[in-house]
């Protein structure tokens, strides 16, 4: 008899979601859907506010990545005012975003995902979480907690609070970086880098062993990926041009401007999710979820590894051949089991950029 399996809520993710699996009469999987089930109405209630209030308001879209929304609001404010942001403020915004990347990816890797890798997908449900990890490997858990703390503390040193600091404003930032804050960052940076290196090494070991099977099958579906690229082809996190690559790592579009986003990015609606479905306009809406022109599925995690021919990532490249052996057709950073890796790599880059 046909039936639907519902996973509700999806836990240890950053938001509200459910998953449904549709089985046919023979018990075979015929469809699987990921449903986002949160809607607040920012599209409506932001309208009519002063543009200077957008940073404080849009940051509340997400308490995990408020800085991303804050910077988008500040950059838009720059353009409305037609002002050039002073060099020091550009660097301070960059520092803010690097701290954001550090804390958010530390959260994703250590707090949320690592219990699956380290305690096991099939381990006791009551222990397969951050507190289970703290009990099983307190030193690793402490290192992960302190890596996230490092990022959060830098956010507070800059903006006066860890979450929802409306510190980037149209035209620049609200305050300078104090000497004391700079010295704190420099003193704590070696520990942060060591923890990221430890995480990368650990994950590489897992890919070679316990996760070998998952690598071949887990979340293997086509998607487009989007990232920012600096004018010299290097990694970029605030400015730069937009690049799209496909699941095979082939360049789809390059040197796109954020100002023209509406010409190449579209959003479709499906009745079964409150999340809209972004797609690359020149390719149109995918006809099906698998086996046709893919949705633009990943915009920040996997795509933040620089795609295309200019990619250079020594620590990342060292693990790449192992993933290639599992599925030769798709580049490693575009595969689901490698996303934890590609989430760690920007933290390495972030911690190396200071």
């Amino acid at each position, binding site marked *: 008899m046909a039936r639907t399996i*519902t*996973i*509700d*809520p999806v*836990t*240890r*993710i*950053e*938001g*509200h979601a*459910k998953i*449904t699996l549709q089985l046919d009469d023979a018990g075979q999987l015929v469809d699987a859907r990921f*449903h986002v*089930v949160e*809607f*607040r*109405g920012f*599209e*409506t*209630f932001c309208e009519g506010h002063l543009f200077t209030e957008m940073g404080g*308001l849009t940051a*509340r*879209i*997400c*308490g*995990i990545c*408020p800085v991303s929304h804050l910077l988008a609001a500040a950059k838009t404010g720059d353009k409305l005012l037609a002002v050039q942001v002073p060099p020091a403020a550009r660097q301070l915004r960059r520092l803010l975003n690097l701290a954001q990347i550090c804390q958010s990816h530390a*959260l994703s890797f250590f*707090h*949320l995902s690592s219990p699956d890798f380290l305690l096991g997908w099939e381990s006791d*449900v*009551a222990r*397969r*979480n*951050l*507190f289970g990890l*703290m*009990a099983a490997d*307190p030193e690793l858990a*402490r290192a992960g*907690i*302190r890596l*996230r*703390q490092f990022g*959060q503390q830098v956010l507070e040193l800059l903006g006066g609070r*860890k*979450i*929802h600091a409306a510190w980037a404003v149209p035209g620049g930032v609200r305050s300078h970086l104090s000497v004391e804050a700079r010295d704190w960052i420099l003193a704590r940076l070696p520990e942060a880098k060591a923890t990221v290196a430890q995480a990368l090494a650990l994950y590489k070991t897992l890919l070679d062993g316990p996760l070998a099977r998952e690598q071949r099958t887990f979340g293997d579906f086509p998607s487009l990926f989007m990232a920012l690229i600096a004018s010299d082809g290097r990694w970029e996190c605030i400015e730069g041009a937009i690049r799209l690559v496909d699941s095979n790592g082939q360049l789809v579009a390059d040197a796109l401007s954020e100002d023209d986003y509406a010409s190449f990015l*579209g*959003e*479709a*609606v*499906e*009745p*079964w*999710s*409150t999340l*809209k479905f972004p797609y690359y*306009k020149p390719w149109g*809406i995918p006809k099906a979820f698998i086996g046709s022109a893919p949705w633009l599925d990943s915009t920040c995690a996997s795509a933040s590894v620089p795609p295309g021919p200019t990619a250079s990532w020594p620590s990342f490249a060292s693990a790449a051949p192992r993933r290639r052996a599992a599925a030769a057709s798709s580049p490693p950073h575009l595969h689901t089991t490698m996303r934890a890796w590609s989430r760690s790599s920007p933290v390495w880059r972030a911690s190396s950029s200071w």
Partner: protein
Amino acid sequence: MTVRLRLATVWLAGCSGCHMSLLDLDEWLFELARWADIVYSPIASDTKMFPEGVDICLVEGAVANSDNRELALQLRERSRLVVSFGDCAVTGNVPALRNLWSCQSVLDRGYGELADQTPQHPHAPGIVPELLERVLPLHQVIAVDLFVPGCPPPAPRIRAALEPLLQGRRPVLEGADLLRFG
């Protein structure tokens, strides 16, 4: 050894920021783990059903849809002490900004006018919850035992609330450091 407390955390309509601030307790989380088991939490548990016999439940977010309301009623029934955790739970805050419009018009704007293709309201009974016509603060839906304001409440404020609770005392939240909105 005293009896371990059963702690739950829930997020309703909000941004997860209060839960992030809870994680900003950083290494004090080890201390928390000495006193309590986290029996239900979006960030630290895979349990799908809100369990019976919860001692303390922190509730982030406003009540904005049918799932939020159902979970709020359930957690109240199964928890000894419910904490309205952060400004969205305490006042409705940002999610309640949509109360200036009807449900229909915010959905029309988000999914009709601003969709390039296939404009339609999300509608999947049993999966996508129906919006409530008005977003409500938690205490207008269930009885609340303690209010911890802030957007989000900073970690030291959360600790000031949790530490006495873990030791069986009622926290006294007084003064601007512990009671400020925003």
